[in-house]
């Protein structure tokens, strides 16, 4: 395992001081590691992600990417993150290829690198002949693919992926998983929130179970099983128990 690429220390926060959503979160994502962020709707997954992206400011705690906070150098901090949002957001007036080109430009990617990476990615997601299309003609899944393509195009040090599977066709889901494994092996860290627990269990190295803004449990599947004293429990059953507030680790 590599060094931590993302460190979250004593993070508390939310949309306002009065309505805090997150309470004292501590976790990290290492280089070459895929970490699953799991929790019910409203558990605080998206809020956590927004804090990591620097869209919300913590009321307490520190978030570092490659050892740096966003206050130290916002551009460097942000250039290390590739973000795949839960709801794809695109510009109606830009084609697929323009979205990708402008993203590559914004991230300061060299033109040769951009042109070298693009064809393979497009092919993986069956978007090669859609380069000149406008988002108005894209389905939800295709819009999601644009976000995925943008993120993997820039090959950042940290991927923040928010519920990526909804709306994707099976081929695209497999392509995304393959890509995540490939990037992981190249040394990137990935934080992925999802509700598809069987896939998460299969692919993630570690898990963070979020419940009501607090980390209920975290660790590898082995560690989680040890904590609850059930060597065969699936992530699904564990998650359901946590979500029901059973606090299974106390048993």
């Amino acid at each position, binding site marked *: 395992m590599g060094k931590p690429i993302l460190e979250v220390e004593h993070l508390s926060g939310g949309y306002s001081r009065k309505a805090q959503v997150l309470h004292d979160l501590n976790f990290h994502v290492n280089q070459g590691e895929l970490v699953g962020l799991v929790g019910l709707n409203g558990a605080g997954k998206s809020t956590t992600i927004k804090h990591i*992206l620097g*869209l919300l400011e913590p009321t307490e705690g520190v978030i570092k990417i490659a050892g740096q906070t966003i206050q130290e150098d916002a*551009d460097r901090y*942000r*250039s290390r993150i590739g*973000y795949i*949002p839960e709801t794809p*957001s*695109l*510009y*109606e*007036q*830009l084609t697929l290829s*323009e*979205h990708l*080109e*402008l*993203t590559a*430009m*914004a*991230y*300061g990617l060299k*033109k040769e690198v951009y042109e070298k990476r693009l064809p393979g990615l497009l092919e993986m997601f069956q978007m090669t002949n859609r380069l*000149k299309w*406008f988002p*108005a003609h894209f389905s939800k899944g295709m819009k999601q693919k644009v976000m995925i393509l*943008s993120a993997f195009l820039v090959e950042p040090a940290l991927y923040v992926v928010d519920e990526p599977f909804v709306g994707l066709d099976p081929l695209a889901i497999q392509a995304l998983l393959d890509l995540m494994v490939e990037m992981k092996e190249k040394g990137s860290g990935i934080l992925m929130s999802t509700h598809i627990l069987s896939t998460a269990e299969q692919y993630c190295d570690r898990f963070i179970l979020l419940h009501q803004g607090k980390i209920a449990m975290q660790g590898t599947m082995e560690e989680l099983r040890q904590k609850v004293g059930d060597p065969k429990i699936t992530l699904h059953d564990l998650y359901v128990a946590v979500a029901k507030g059973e606090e299974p680790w106390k048993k």
Partner: protein
Amino acid sequence: MEKIKQLWMVRRGEFWQEASRYLKLLGNSGFMFSLYILILGGGVYYQRWIKGLSSDFPTEWILTAVFGILVFRTPLRTFLKSADLVFLLPVEKQLAGYFRQALIYNGLLQGTSIVFVWAIAMPLYRHTVSSDIMGYLIILVLLFAVKAWNLYAVWQEQHVLESTLYDLLRGFLTIVFIGIVLFKTPWWAVVIVILAIVVLTLSIIQPLSKHLLKWDKLLAGEKRQLERFYRLANMITDVPKMRNRMKPRRWLTGLTELYGYGQAQVFKKFYLKTFIRSGEYLGIWFRLLLIGILLMILLPKGVTSAIVAWVFTYLTASQLTALYNEYFASSSTSFTLSEKYLKSSFLHIYSTVLLVQMVIFSLFALFISRSLEIAGITLLVGLALIYAFTYSYVKRKVNKTGTV
């Protein structure tokens, strides 16, 4: 079911309540003031211009074209909302009354604009065609009749997705009808055209309603109309609901390639592409250019040309500031890293677009007044005005509020 009966009144009321807020703002704005001046000035010149016309002026041709377009263009306001597709679709049959009221509403509205334009045309018509007031009024009634037919046909066309052919036939007959009315052709020509209209209606237009009503088409039409209104309102105030219609205009895309590759170019490309494709920005720019050139031709040559150029570039400038907000229309974080270039790139594209307009105006000033002096003054003062407006007023606005 009582609710469905009242739905039309409720929807129309909702729209006009919202509209009156914007209309009030529009009435008090500088844009309207410029418009009044233009109308007043235009009116004086119009009267003077008519007096100089002889009776062989092609009034009939011009009026045929103007009213042909005015009568043929029949947008449908239905006040439908996209959610109606879920909630009202099941009660489509009970909405017959709703749609009837919508057609009446559209007829009244579009009829009003015909009266308005016909009134403007009155001095021209009476001076060059015929001073007979009865004939003048009869033509107005006939225009109403053919408008009503257009409305009916457009409604029937809402039952099919592909209606280009019907539109062509309808447009052709509409223009021919207006033409024969204005040219006072023999009675049998009138009879033939009316027969053609009746045959078309009975054989093709009327049977269209055996198809299902195409809600998507109705909704798209409503959306277009609503956007038109919001675009107008957006000239003077920020309209939160404005969602832009996008036109690819691929033939202009090459222009955006003038800006190369690199972090500093992101928003130059972004804003130029947005200007070209999104909403009405290019349309406004082009229309004001066209009207300006037309005025240059009609008004006395000389300094007037320069003033027209400045006024119309100013009108363009005041409407294009909204372009800045387009970046914030999406919550995308893809371009965040280039944001340090956002404002300067916007001001660059904004002033460049105005500059191009001013250059074209100056070329026309040269062409019309055949005076290098006039053209030079138009261009130089124009550029100074654009620069001053962009880098003082607009820049301050952008810096202060974040959005324009």
